[in-house]
């Protein structure tokens, strides 16, 4: 998925002199799209994901004087986005179990791009996971985050990340094998 985490590496020397506006522009350019996509995977609702990510950028700008580092800024943004998405999701999940059809269908019914069958199966299978497991899987496979980063982002222990990932993988493998 290519999270452009390397963008800043060669630039470390002068980035700390960025003011909040410069940082906003730089970090936005590098990460806005991928953060919205992350939110959309978690929420299955692109509009809400965009709102949440924009809020997060406004917040990041406001605290740039304390972050002063694009890596920290990204970690901050990611945590903010994941937390907000999870909070919405927890409610949706409850509803979902009762009324799968009442939810907005998938990230974008309006988007004409069809999924491949393979992706379709994976996304459908992901929907059956509890919220935490799904979040772990999205951060792991889309966000390409390490265990430690996932733990930090979600505010849980590494052990929990491991066990959520293990359970999710087990369920998904079973489901995906069944539907072949």
């Amino acid at each position, binding site marked *: *998925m290519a999270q452009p985490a390397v963008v800043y590496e060669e630039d470390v020397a002068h980035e700390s002199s960025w003011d*909040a*506006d410069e940082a*906003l*522009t730089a970090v936005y*350019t590098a990460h*806005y*799209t991928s953060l*919205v*996509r992350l939110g*959309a*995977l978690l929420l299955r609702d*692109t509009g809400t*994901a*965009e709102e949440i*990510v*924009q*809020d*997060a*950028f*406004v*917040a990041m700008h*406001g*605290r740039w004087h304390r972050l002063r580092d694009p890596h920290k800024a990204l970690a901050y943004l990611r945590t903010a986005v994941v*937390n*907000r998405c*999870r*909070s919405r999701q*927890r*409610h*949706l999940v*409850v*509803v979902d179990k*009762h*009324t799968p059809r*009442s939810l*907005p269908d998938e*990230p*974008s019914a309006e988007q004409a*791009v069809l*999924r491949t069958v*393979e*992706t379709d*199966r*994976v996304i459908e299978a992901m929907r059956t*996971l*509890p*919220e935490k497991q799904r979040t772990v899987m999205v951060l*792991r*496979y*889309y966000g*390409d*985050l*390490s*265990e430690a980063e*996932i733990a930090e982002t979600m*505010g849980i222990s590494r052990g929990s990340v491991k066990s959520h990932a293990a*359970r999710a993988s087990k369920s*998904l493998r079973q489901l*995906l094998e069944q539907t072949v």
Partner: protein
Amino acid sequence: MSLHDSNDPFDDLMRRALAEEADRVEPADALPEIRARVRGRRRPPTRRPWILTAGAAAIGTAAAIGAFTVLDDNAKNAGDDQVAGGPDTTTSVTGAPLSSAPATATEPSAAPTAPAATSPGATLAPPERGKPEQVVKSAVVPVYWLGNRVGTNRAGEVRLYRTWAKVQGRPATEAVQILTTKEPGDPDYYSVWRGARLNSVTRSPGLITVDFKQLPQARLDAAEATVAVQQLVYTVQGALSADTERVQITEQGRTGTKLFGQIDSSSPLARAKSNDVQALIWITSPEEGTSVPTPVKVTGYGSAFEAHLNWRILDVKTGHVVAEGPTRTAEAYKFTPFAFVVDKLPPGYYTVEVFESSARDGRATSTDSKSFMVR
């Protein structure tokens, strides 16, 4: 990156599928809008200790969300502690019990004349702003929070949820302080008043004036803004046991600011009907994040069709329903207590959900939930 150094085809499949799914999302450019929002805020270079606190406590989501909401809207809270008539001034007491406070309304200062509804801009509030509220030795006051109401067709519909807080000093002032500076105990609840800076709460006959040094900066949609304003109205009225008195919200003595970018505050606000803004189900016990002995007694209030509610207990780890059943409120259609007991829960982490099944299609609606541990 120990999680993904394998060549397992499953890992490849997951990566490929999520990347493909993600690529379907092409967000529009939002940088101009973000810049505009950033410019719209005043930003004194003060430090904000409460952010540190909230950030450090960001296990799970509650604290982080709270912090985030605040950050989002207000970069300038350093002065939260120094509020007029703050808690420290209240050790000696004039001792009016809370219940009598509203009856002994202060002397008749001219109530503000009818709202200057015609003048759109900020106008000076009437000079008589009434008297400070009574000081009490201690009082338990209701504090209202926003929470999403699930099971409705409108995503993001918010409702009021009530918690209790023990305060001393000036009950309404203290209650508003909780809204502007504290975290709710339940991660599902939040306050859009967080970060606002209260100046004073004063009373004159029929009117409560809540003056802020700084109103919240959040901009909300009309529906959420309506409930958000009622969050303050309910909290202030509840603290003063004065449900019928209107609430005038001012900023540095001036009326007319559009609250949350939506609500005209040039005239005093009345309490909205509880059915329109209040959540229909509140779980009051167990409290969020507490540990309880088994059997677990669950209590709360609900307003339900024919008094009928449903509940279920989910194992937090597996997400499975481990117990479920019906319960009844004391009276149909009225916001009245319910209680039920769940036995045979082995030690572990659980979430209890209480909800009403929609008469129309059986969906769970109005759900309130609490997570707890069984010892």
